[in-house]
C-alpha cells in the first residue's frame, strides 16, 4: 500500500502552515499596534501618524495576502491527502468553510458588528475541526504505517488544540466584554498577545507534527517500493 497522495498533500499543508505562522506574526503585529495607533491619531504629529498608519495598513494587506495563500495551499493539500485518507476530506471542507466565514466576518465588521462576531466565532470552531480532522487523519495513517510514536504525538496534538482553542475562545469573549471600558486597549493588547502566542504555539507544534508525518510517509513509501 502506498500513501503517495497523502505524502504530497501533507507537504503542501506544511507550506500552508509556514504561511499561517507568517500571517499570524503579521496580524499579531497589526493587532498589537492598532490600539496604540488609534491613540496616536490624537497626536499633532500628522506626518508620523500618517507614516505609522501606512505601515500598519501595508502589514495588514501583506497578512491578508499570506492568509489567502495559506488557504489555497491548505485546500489543495487536504484535497490531495484525502485521496489516501478520508479524514482529510473533512479537513478540506472545513478549510474552505472556515476561510469563507473568517473573511466574511472581516468584511461585515463595519456594517454589522453582531454578524461579524458570529461569523468569526463560527470560523474559529470550523478551523478547530479542520485541524482535529487533519490530526485524526495523520493518526489513522500512523496506524497503517505501524508508527506508534506518531499516534502518541497525535494525542498530544489533539490535547493542545482543544486547550488552545478553549483559551483563545474565552479570551475573545473577554476582549469583547471590555471593549467599551476605559482600559479596553490595554486588555486588547494583553489578551491579543496571549492569543497570538497560543496561535503561534499551536501552528508550530502542528507544523512539527506534519513534518513527522511527512517523514513517516516518505519512509513507508520507500519501504513499500523496496519490497
Amino acid at each position, binding site marked *: 500500500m502506498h500513501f503517495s497522495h497523502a505524502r504530497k498533500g501533507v507537504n503542501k499543508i506544511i507550506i500552508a502552515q509556514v504561511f499561517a505562522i507568517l500571517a499570524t506574526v503579521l496580524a499579531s503585529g497589526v493587532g498589537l499596534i492598532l490600539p496604540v495607533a488609534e491613540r496616536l491619531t490624537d497626536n499633532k504629529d500628522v506626518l508620523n501618524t500618517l507614516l505609522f498608519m501606512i505601515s500598519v495598513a501595508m502589514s495588514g494587506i501583506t497578512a491578508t495576502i499570506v492568509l489567502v495563500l495559506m488557504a489555497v495551499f491548505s485546500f489543495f493539500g487536504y484535497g490531495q491527502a484525502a485521496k489516501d485518507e478520508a479524514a482529510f476530506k*473533512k479537513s478540506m*471542507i*472545513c478549510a474552505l468553510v472556515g476561510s469563507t466565514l473568517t473573511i466574511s466576518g472581516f468584511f461585515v465588521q463595519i456594517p454589522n*458588528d*453582531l454578524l461579524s*462576531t*458570529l461569523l468569526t*466565532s*463560527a470560523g*474559529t*470552531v*470550523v478551523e*478547530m*475541526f479542520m485541524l*482535529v*480532522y487533519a490530526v*485524526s487523519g495523520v*493518526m489513522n495513517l500512523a496506524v497503517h504505517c505501524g508508527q506508534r510514536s506518531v499516534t502518541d504525538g497525535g*494525542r498530544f496534538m*489533539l*490535547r493542545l*488544540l*482543544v486547550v488552545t*482553542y*478553549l483559551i483563545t*475562545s*474565552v479570551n*475573545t*469573549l473577554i476582549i*469583547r*466584554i471590555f*471593549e*467599551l471600558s476605559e482600559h479596553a486597549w490595554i486588555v486588547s493588547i494583553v489578551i491579543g498577545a496571549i492569543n497570538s502566542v497560543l496561535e503561534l504555539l499551536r501552528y508550530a507544534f502542528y507544523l512539527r507534527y506534519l513534518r513527522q508525518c511527512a517523514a513517516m510517509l516518505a519512509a513507508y513509501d520507500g519501504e513499500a517500493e523496496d519490497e
Partner: protein
Amino acid sequence: MNDLVMKINDKKDWLGRQVWIVPACFGLSCLLTALSVVLLALRGFNGMENVWMCSIGADIFCMAICAMLCFSATLNSKARNADTHVFVTMLTTNAFALFLDEICWLVQGNPALRVVNLVANVLFYIMGSVLVYLFWEYIRRALKLNDRPMRIADLFVTVMLYPSLLLSLVNFVYPLYFEIDAGGVYRRAAQWDVSQVYLCIALTVVILAIAFAKASKKDRFVAISFVAIPLVNQAVTVNVFGLSTQYAATTVSIVLIYGVLFAEREKTLASTEMELGVATKIQADMLPGTFPFMPERTEFDLYASMTPAKEVGGDFYDFFPIDDDHLALVIADVSGKGIPAALFMMASKILIKNTVMTGKSPGEVLSAVNRQICENNREEMFVTVWLGILDLRDGTLVTANAGHEYPILKTPDGDFELLKAKHGFVVGGMPGMKYKETELHLAPGSKLFVYTDGVPEAENEQEEQYGYERFLNVLNKNRDARPEMLLKAVSADVGAFTQDQPQFDDLTMLCIHYRGKNN
C-alpha cells in the same frame, strides 16, 4: 484529556439512569403552564402592547405543547432510555424559558418589579445556553457521534458552556447583555452580541457534526431544523422590541423532532411485530405437526399441541422414532417468555434430540444436555424436561424428569391419575447433575398425558387456578376419547374456565395411547 472526556461521559450517563426524570419533567411542565395562566389572569392585559400579548400567547401555547409531549413520554415507560431523558429535559428547559419570557413581559414597564424582570431575564439567557447544549447532547446521542473528533467537539461545547453561564450571571451586577432601566423596561446593552457567541459556537459544532455524520436524510433534516427555524425567526424578529418568539420557534423544531421519533418508533414496532410473526412460524415449523404420526404403526396413537402465550413461547414437545422399536417423547418448558425463551427452546430441543439419537438412556441424556447447556449459560436460563423412551414391543417406558410437571397415566381399566415419581433438578440450573430414571410398563390400552404448567396454573378473572382437580375431571370425562379429542377437550375446558382472561403461560400437551404390539 481522555480522563476528562470519560468523567464528562460518566456524568452524562447518570442522566440516562434516572427514572424519575420523565415524570418530574411532566410535573414541572404542567406546573409552569398552570402558573403562567394564573399569573396572566392576576396581571391582566392593562397597559400591555399588542406585540407583548402576542409573545405571551405564544409562550403559554408552546408551554402547553411541551407539557403534552412530556405526558406522552410518561405513557411508554418501557421505551424510555437516556435519549428520552435528554429529550424530555430539553422540552422542560424550553418550557421554563417560555415561562421566563412570559414573566419578563408581564412585569415589563413596572418599576416596582424591576428585580423580577432582571432575574427573569438572567435566567432566560441561561436557559438559552442550556437548551442549545442539551440539543447538542441529544444530537450526539441520536446520531451516535462517538468518534475522536466528536468527542473533542463535545468537550469543547461542554467546557464553553461554563463561561457562557458565568457571563449570563454577570448581568446581575453589570449590564453586559441588557439592562432594566428605572422605568422597569428591558433594553439591550452594547455587548448583547456576546450572548450569542456560545449559541453560535454550539450550533456550528452541531451543523458540522450533522454534515459529517453517517445519518439518514430525515435525521439530518430534523437536526438542521432545530438550527434553521429559530435562526429564521431570529432574523425576522431581532429588531422588533416585544416580539420574542425564539423559544416558540424552538418548540416547533422540538415538535418536528418528536414527530420523527414517534414515526421511527412505530416503524421499529411494526418491524418487531413482523419479525415476531416470522419467529412464531419458525417455532411452529420446528415442532412436529403432522398427525396422525406414523399412521402405519398401529401400536400407538399420538397427538400434541402448543399454544403460546405470546407470539413465541418457551414450551416445546417432541416425539421421534429412535429405531424400529423405540419412540422418544419429550415435553419441556423454558424459563422466561418471548424471543429469548424461544431461542433457548430451539437449542434445547436440538440438543435433546441429538443426544437421544446417540442411544443414551433418558437419565444420561438429561445429564449430557445439562452439562452442555451449563457450559455457556450466561443468561442463566433453564428448562424443565420430561423425557420418555417407549419400547413399542412391550410397552416399557423409561422416563427421566428434570423439574417438570408429573405425567398423568390412565391404565386400561382405570382413571387418569398423577404419576408422582421423583423429580431431578432443572436442566441448565447447575452443572454436574444426575437424573434418576423411572421405569413403567404400559399395558395395551394405557394413555399417558404430559403437559406444561400452563394447564394447571391457568387463571380466571378471580385469580383462581385451573388446578389438578378440574384437569383430572375433564380427562376422566373423556377417558375413552382419542388423544386428539382429549387434548381439544382439555383446551376447551381451560378456555371455559379462564374465559376472557389473557393467556398467561403457554399451553402445551402431549398424549399417547399405547395399543400394544398385537392390537
